[in-house]
């Protein structure tokens, strides 16, 4: 499985290899170093901010008495369904040059010019808004799964709340924080839409220039390999950060829901944080899309035309999510339960492709499938396979952080009581890791829903998804027609996220009721 997921890597090696010395010269250009530096700075900034934001929000909605916390639990996850270039366009429309908000700020006494949005700042804001939900969803799932007994023990032994959070909760959350942060980093490394709109020159823009203006795939492949090396560095860092929390301890068979901490005077600032994030990441893009669609002729006609693409989107996204989870479980299991160099390597390899821009993954799969899977090329089968390759790390992040939390002794006990290995896994481990798997599946579902480059090149002719509809309208600047399918993406995704959060929350609610009784 991991081998298949590393096809894009193999492709880059082939291309960079056939390119000869000329293709490698691109690395030696002085500007390339500058661009790599900029790429790393952006990835670092986005990762730190997205992680801080994701953990803070997850803690607020799961562990505190935040008012309307179930609403915030769903609303704060939803920016994930907003395509990041839409988030960037909304930012530009709302606080870019010529925007009323900016005018208002500049009219304030003592303000000569509002700070520049384009470049680093705008890229960081837009990408943070698009990636913190990865951390939020994974850490949220972990917090709900966490056995409060340890924290209670630490409290009973006299630790302060902050101390417990630092010394007990945080270490237990490390696998899910690491997994979420990793996804945020990889997303940032592979993003092209935001940095192009924000005019920030990072590696993906240089790669796109090789493809789009020089029509040269070889130096593009070499730069792609640079991205892979950066990914490898990030993965090493993440492995370090995982540290000893990897031991698969902790997990109790039936975690009780923890008590909720009263926010007290922090209630208003906490609400402000939630509202601010949801406003920037969800409300603003929806409003901008709404305004665009008003420019268009008829919303009813637009909606009717969306039924078929919407159905296609949901169908492929569902199938991709299911397949990705099925593929992720054995890889995750192997690396958690039998952490050899090989199993670790296999798992890490699956991440390699995720930091690459979508078009590179798409071309890699064009290369292999048109050659070796001729009859399947440009059919749904290869398209689904491509989605799994591209988004396996997201399913893996969910599966792995859940598997780490399950004590293998439970399964061993079941086997001792006479269950076979598969039976013990289904009866014991699977129910325990279900929330994690579901979180992973949701991430893959949402990513597939808005996926474009792979879809464009590998879909069967005439197969339209909501993302291709958005693309085909924006490619002729028909923003009014791009808006309805983009809104449909958000509307379709919302109930899925809602169900995911509700489902895990219901369990909390049941537990609370029991506790009260």
């Amino acid at each position, binding site marked *: 499985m991991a081998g298949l997921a590393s096809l894009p890597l193999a492709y880059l090696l082939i291309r960079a290899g056939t390119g000869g010395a000329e293709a490698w010269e691109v690395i030696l250009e002085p500007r390339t170093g500058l661009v790599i530096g900029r790429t790393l700075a952006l990835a670092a900034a986005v990762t730190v901010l997205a992680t801080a934001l994701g953990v803070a929000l997850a803690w607020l909605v799961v562990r505190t008495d935040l008012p309307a916390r179930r609403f915030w639990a769903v609303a704060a996850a939803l920016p994930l369904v907003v395509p990041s270039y839409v988030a960037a366009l909304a930012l530009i429309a709302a606080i870019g040059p010529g925007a009323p908000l900016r005018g208002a700020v500049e009219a304030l006494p003592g303000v000569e010019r509002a700070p520049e949005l384009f470049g680093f700042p705008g890229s960081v804001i837009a990408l943070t808004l698009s990636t913190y939900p990865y951390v939020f969803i994974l850490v949220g799932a972990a917090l709900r799964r966490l056995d409060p007994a340890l924290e209670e023990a630490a409290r009973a032994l006299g630790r302060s709340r902050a101390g417990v959070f630092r010394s007990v909760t945080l270490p237990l959350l490390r696998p899910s924080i690491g997994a979420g942060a990793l996804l945020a980093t990889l997303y940032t490394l592979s993003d092209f839409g935001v940095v192009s709109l924000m005019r920030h020159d990072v590696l993906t823009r240089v790669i796109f220039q090789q493809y789009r203006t020089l029509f040269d795939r070889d130096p593009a492949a070499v730069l792609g390999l640079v991205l892979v090396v950066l990914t490898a560095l990030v993965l090493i860092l993440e492995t370090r950060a995982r540290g000893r929390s990897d031991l698969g301890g902790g997990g109790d068979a039936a975690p009780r829901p923890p008590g909720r901490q009263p926010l007290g005077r922090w209630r208003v600032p906490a609400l402000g944080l939630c509202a601010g994030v949801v406003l920037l990441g969800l409300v603003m893009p929806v409003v901008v899309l709404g305004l665009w669609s008003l420019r268009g002729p008829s919303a009813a006609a637009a909606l009717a035309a969306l039924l078929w693409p919407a*159905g296609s989107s949901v169908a492929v996204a569902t199938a991709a999510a299911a397949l990705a989870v099925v593929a992720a479980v054995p890889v995750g299991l192997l690396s958690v339960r039998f952490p050899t160099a090989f199993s670790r390597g296999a798992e890490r390899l699956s991440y390699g492709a995720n930091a690459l821009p979508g078009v590179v993954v798409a071309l890699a799969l064009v290369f292999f499938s048109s050659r070796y899977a001729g009859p399947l090329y440009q059919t*749904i089968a290869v398209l689904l396979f491509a989605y799994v390759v591209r988004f396996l790390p997201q399913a893996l992040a969910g599966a792995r952080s859940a598997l780490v939390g399950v004590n293998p002794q439970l399964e061993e006990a079941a086997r001792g009581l006479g269950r076979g290995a598969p039976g013990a896994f289904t009866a014991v481990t699977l129910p325990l890791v279900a929330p994690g798997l579901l979180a992973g599946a949701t991430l893959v579902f949402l990513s597939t829903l808005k996926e474009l480059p792979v879809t464009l090149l590998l879909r069967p002719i005439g197969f339209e998804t909501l993302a291709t509809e958005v693309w085909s309208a924006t490619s002729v600047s028909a923003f009014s027609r791009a808006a309805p399918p983009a809104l449909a993406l958000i509307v379709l995704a919302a109930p899925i996220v809602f169900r995911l959060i509700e489902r895990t929350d219901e369990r909390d609610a049941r537990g609370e009721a029991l506790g009260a009784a």
Partner: protein
Amino acid sequence: MSRRATLLPLLALLALLAGCGERPEPAGGDPNRLTVYSGRAEDLVGPLFERFERSTGVDVEVRYGDSAELAATIGEEGENSPADVFFAQDAGALGAVAETGRLARLPEPLLGKVDSRFRDPGGRWVGVSGRARVVAYDKRRLSGRELPRSVFDFADPRWKGRIGFPPTNASFQAFVSGMRLAVGDARTKAWLEGIAANEPKLLENNVQTLEAIARGEFEVGLVNHYYLYELRAERPDLPVENHFLAPGDPGSLVNVAGLGVLHDGPAAQRFADYLLSVEGQRFFATDTAEYPLLAGVRPDDALRPLEDIKGPDIPLGRLGQELRSTVELIRDAGLTP
């Protein structure tokens, strides 16, 4: 998720699988089937394919995508490409595919319909519609008469902080290549450096450039002529206008969208013939606001006639070989990463 809710999309998926299971094959010798890779948007050229199907009875399958990405796809597919025809947004993408040796030579009578400037000297691709480089300007702040007649004048410090363009865009690079062939590298380099000193805003593409002008970020942008008409379809009050430079000025290069044939056959020939027929050419004049390339078909009245634009007298087929040095020149001026 309830069981039924999971089942429905999966059923839909199965239906789709059944419907889309067949992969497109190149038509090759089949006179009634054709697979086209189109780098031009469905919104623009979809009706053209429909008219072709109606008038010839040929069944056309079209894969839409970005021209450069489709060119790369054809490169990766090699001999296995299902495409019979590559219909591209710009001459550069066609040249790139021609370089891989995948394009068949087009017949003389077809090539002869188009001015030799607008086709491959080797006869492997032919332009079917033209687009002119123009200066788009903010009509709230400028009038056409205040604008210079040559693109060289924009290197003057008077324009400092007032210009924007997409330096990595294929159309901009073709224009710089054209300038190099027309006036030489030294003058082009000096112009690029002058422009860079004017601290231009650098954007990703032509549309972003026009939108930035509309937002008031800067006053003039170097772009292709037809994006303005696309945007106006939706926002008739867009405060932007096109300014055509003097005839023969490098700033008024005329580039083309065109086609090349990957798997030759009767259907591919009929398609190429149709695009360069009076009917096909009228479509570009009326529906896409482009320049017809067939003599005798007039462009839309709002456009300055092709004869009056002229542009530098440079065969587009030569621009491909210049691309690499052009990109380096633009980069050395500090305009691209």
